[in-house]
C-alpha cells in the first residue's frame, strides 16, 4: 500500500508486491492505488470539499465540468500529493523519468448537466503520468475512465470507492476519456499529472501564499 499521511507518505508494499505492480502497469498501462490517503486526512479534505463552491470549466474542445472554486483548498490538496517518497515509488513502479511535481484539480461531473469528456492524450506540458482519486462517498454510475492504446479496444476502469485512485500512463499512442455520469449521483475526483518539471521545491513555493514564501529566519 501507498498511504499519504499528514506528515509524509508511507509505502508498505513488499518487494514482490512492487514487482507485481510494475508488471501490471507494463501490461495494462494503469494500476489501482486503493486507500491512497489515510482515512482521517481523507475525511478532513472531503468535508472541506463538500463545504466549497464550484465553478464551470470548459476544456477547449475536450469537455465541460465544474471545478472547485476554492484555490487555497486545491493548493492544500496539491500540497499533500507533492511528496518525494510518493514520487520515488511511482517512478519505481512505472519506470518513468524523474518526477518533479504533481499538479491537479478537483472536478465534478453532474449527471444531466451537460458535463462530458472526450478522447484526449494529456501529453505535453512536461506531463508524465495521470492520476485520478475518487472523492465521492456515494458510488456513481458511468463516469468510467476509458484508456485506449492505438486502435485497441478501450480498457474500462471504474473507480467508485471513496479514496481509491487510478494511476495511468500518458503517451502519444494512448488516449483516454471519462464517460458521461448517469443516474443521480455526481462524480467528484481529484485528478492531475505527475510532471517532470517544475521540481518539488519550486512547486511547493508556488503553492505557498504570496508574501509567505520567504524562508523564516
Amino acid at each position, binding site marked *: 500500500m501507498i498511504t499519504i499521511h499528514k506528515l509524509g507518505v508511507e509505502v508498505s508494499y513488499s518487494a514482490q508486491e512492487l514487482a507485481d505492480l510494475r508488471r501490471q502497469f507494463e501490461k495494462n498501462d494503469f494500476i489501482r492505488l486503493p486507500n491512497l490517503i489515510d482515512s482521517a486526512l481523507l475525511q478532513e479534505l472531503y468535508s*472541506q470539499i463538500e463545504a466549497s463552491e464550484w465553478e464551470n470549466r470548459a476544456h477547449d474542445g475536450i469537455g465541460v465540468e465544474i471545478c472547485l472554486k476554492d484555490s487555497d483548498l486545491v*493548493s492544500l490538496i496539491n*500540497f*499533500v500529493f507533492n*511528496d*518525494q517518497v510518493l514520487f520515488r515509488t511511482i517512478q519505481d513502479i512505472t519506470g518513468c523519468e524523474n518526477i518533479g511535481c504533481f499538479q491537479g484539480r478537483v472536478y465534478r461531473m453532474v449527471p444531466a448537466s451537460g458535463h462530458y469528456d472526450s478522447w484526449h492524450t494529456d501529453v505535453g506540458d512536461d506531463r508524465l503520468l495521470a492520476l485520478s482519486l475518487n472523492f465521492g462517498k456515494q458510488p456513481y454510475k458511468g463516469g468510467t475512465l476509458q484508456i485506449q492504446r492505438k486502435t485497441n479496444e478501450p480498457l474500462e476502469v471504474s473507480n467508485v470507492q471513496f479514496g481509491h485512485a487510478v494511476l495511468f500512463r500518458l503517451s502519444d499512442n494512448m488516449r483516454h476519456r471519462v464517460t458521461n455520469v448517469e443516474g443521480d449521483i455526481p462524480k467528484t475526483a481529484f485528478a492531475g499529472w505527475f510532471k517532470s518539471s517544475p521540481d518539488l521545491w519550486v512547486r511547493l513555493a508556488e503553492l505557498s*501564499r504570496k508574501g509567505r514564501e520567504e524562508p523564516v*529566519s
Partner: protein
Amino acid sequence: MKDWSSTSRFRVTSSTLARSFGDNVALAHMSTRHFHLLNPTATLIWNSVCAGRTIGEMERNIAEQYNVDPAELSKSVDAVLTMLSSEAFIEIQP
C-alpha cells in the same frame, strides 16, 4: 511573550501538513491554509520538535552538531518556535 522553558516540549498539531524535500521542509495548515517553506535552521528545529526533544535538548543537540554561539542559537530557536506556534503548526505538550 513566550510561555515555555528549557524543559518544555512541543508537538505537531493535528491540522499540520508537512512535506520534506531533501533537507528542506514545507508546512501547510489545514484550517488557515497558510504555507511555509522552512529555512535550514528552522528545519533543524522542526525536526527536533518531531523527535520529541525539549527545548534544552534541541539547543544542545544543534550546538553539538554546528559551531554556533549559544546565545544566538537560543534566539533563533525562540524565533522559530514563536513562528511555528503562532501559526498553529506546533503546540506545547501539556
